[in-house]
């Protein structure tokens, strides 16, 4: 019960943040200097064409009316028509979302399965050669920009070693016989189409690894430091003093409480992850939302852009809500009391 209330409180907070975000976007898109219609049509459009588009977009109405229209459209999930593709932005986003979702999920997978074990091992083997190596790796991984990692991977594993394809989601000959979720890896598993599965896997490997590097580095750092901190706490000394086996102490009594700060970092990470996705999708020509956003931006498609930015904000808040849910499951103080001590 307390848990539900806690989650509702966090959800309400998220909704407020999203509302604020939509206001900021409205201000940026309407109040700042520059005419979106003129920008969309380019310098060679006639005055009439611009006026027509202004009317269509409602830019000639008073600001307040524009705001009401914009908000009521948003609440209904209407972002208007894309000025480039001439399609409903919702359709465009829905079309590009699965690719991004697949990429982000794969990235999170790497962050968790590589970052947490390396961080934990590094804490257990503190001050050994392994620990120093891991810490060096984590520093490097955090510092190098994701898109440069991507280009490095392309050069090394794509061009020189020729192990992996460097662009797109699938090889030209591969077809998806039936779109179920739109996430090719999962669809392939459902359809038991192994050719599709391995082709999709080969394509997603480099971009997801490139995108995950910074996250892996952060997670190593935080897992290591929170395990070392918990290691010194009394309750760990108590179970140790009673001769409970070391492995059990480490992987039960230290690791579980250490997960909580790690998860919080994962939630915050999702923001920079979504940001970096813009660049990594560009590097690998990954046909996702971020790539769509970059196109919308380069071509001054204001409706498409608003859709992408709001979708990203929503993604970030959802990620944090999921993190809160998992933390609640791990931490009885949140589950039973609704707050941490």
């Amino acid at each position, binding site marked *: 019960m307390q848990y539900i209330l806690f989650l509702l409180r966090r959800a309400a907070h998220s909704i407020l943040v999203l509302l604020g975000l939509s206001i900021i976007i409205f201000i940026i898109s309407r109040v700042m200097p520059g005419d979106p219609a003129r920008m969309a049509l380019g310098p060679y459009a006639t005055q009439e064409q611009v006026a027509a588009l202004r009317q269509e977009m409602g830019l000639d109405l008073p600001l307040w009316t524009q705001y009401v229209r914009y908000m009521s459209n948003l609440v209904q999930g209407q972002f208007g028509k894309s000025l480039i593709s001439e399609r409903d932005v919702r359709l465009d986003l829905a079309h590009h979302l699965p690719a991004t979702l697949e990429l982000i999920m794969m990235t999170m997978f790497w962050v968790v399965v590589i970052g947490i074990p390396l961080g934990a091992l590094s804490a257990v083997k503190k*001050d050994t050669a392994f620990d120093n190596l891991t810490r060096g790796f984590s520093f490097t991984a955090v510092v190098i920009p994701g898109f440069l990692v991507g280009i490095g991977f392309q050069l090394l594993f794509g061009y020189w070693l020729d192990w992996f394809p460097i662009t797109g989601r699938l090889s030209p000959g591969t077809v998806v016989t039936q779109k179920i979720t739109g996430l090719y890896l999962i669809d392939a598993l459902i359809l038991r189409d192994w050719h599709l599965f391995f082709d999709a896997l080969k394509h997603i490997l480099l971009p997801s690894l490139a995108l995950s590097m910074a996250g892996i580095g952060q997670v190593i750092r935080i897992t290591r430091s929170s395990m070392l901190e918990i290691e010194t*706490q*009394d*309750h*760990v*000394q*108590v*179970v*140790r*003093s*009673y*001769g*409970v*086996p070391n*492995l*059990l102490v480490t992987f*039960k*009594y230290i690791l*579980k*409480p250490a997960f*909580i700060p790690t998860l919080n970092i994962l939630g915050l990470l999702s923001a920079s992850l979504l940001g970096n996705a813009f660049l990594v999708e560009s590097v690998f020509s990954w046909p996702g939302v971020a790539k769509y956003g970059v196109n919308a931006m380069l071509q001054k498609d204001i409706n498409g852009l608003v859709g992408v930015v709001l979708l990203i904000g929503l993604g970030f808040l959802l990620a944090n809500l999921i993190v809160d849910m998992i933390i609640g499951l*791990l*931490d*009885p*103080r949140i589950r*039973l*009391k609704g707050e941490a*001590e």
Partner: protein
Amino acid sequence: MTLTYKQLLEIKDLTVDFDRFGGKARVLNRVNLAVAKGEKVGVVGETGCGKSVTMKAVMNLLPTRRVTVGGSIFYKGRDLLTLDRFARRQITGKEVVMIFQDPMTSLNPVFTIGQQMEDIIGYNLAGAKRGLRLPKRLRQEAREQAARFLAAVKLADPERILNSYPFQLSGGMRQRVLIALALANQPDLIIADEPGTALDVTTQAQILELMDQLVQERGIALLMITHNLGVVRETTDRVYVMYAGTVVETAATDALFAEPLHPYTKGLLDSVPKLHGQGLSAGIEGSVPDYLQMNPGCRFYPRCPQALPKCEFEPPEPRSISENHMVSCHLIG
């Protein structure tokens, strides 16, 4: 193998060095301490005098890196420091257990009391054959035993306690849980690190009384570390006074309170506010010195009101005054 031994626990010339960035710090310098079967012994001193380090050395809880331990710790005639990790675990944690200072931080916040007690009791029941998973039967047995001992420390409704998380219990209840945990392994010696200091005075008094009674009933020896002289006076038979990593004086509790010999002990006793008499307590000037720049002679020399010239360079040897009364001071004898 049976060994003949006089003392249950006998610490001989225990020396602990910490490697610090500024050099080696001798945190314990030739500490001698003994506890007989069923005896109640107190160790007093200021914060930072080495009481807790001594106990952690016994319990094998000192970090292994940058720490060197010398001397010997005999338990039932066997030197714990020469035993391997596994043999040592058969003793510490089973026959010798420790109750930590702060009940609020001594239980893992994300596991129930039951989960923690099952693991601790279960692994001791399992003895040498320990895997990472306890057999179901053992886990059940451990849980029953946990419930029995929770009842023994006068906690109502043990089942509910076992299913609770630490944050759902008060400080006094947590302290009782920790005592139950200590008793559950049926130890011969309990080391208690200032039990209940983190609690309010009334609760602390109840806890101490309960512990005293339980230990008495079962004939368990008690080694109580504290800076509270009142606690020492009420619960212990014999007492050690520690200063800056050395034992400066030891005697039967009554004798020490009646006739303190070492200037530090005198200062310590003077620092207790008295109900009768006048003025504030005198106490001791200054605080425990830096372990990296310790006086080569008597460690108390810089603060000693009666220091002699030779105290600066010549460390005093322990001298027997009467049976059970030893003191390390150039002023005596």
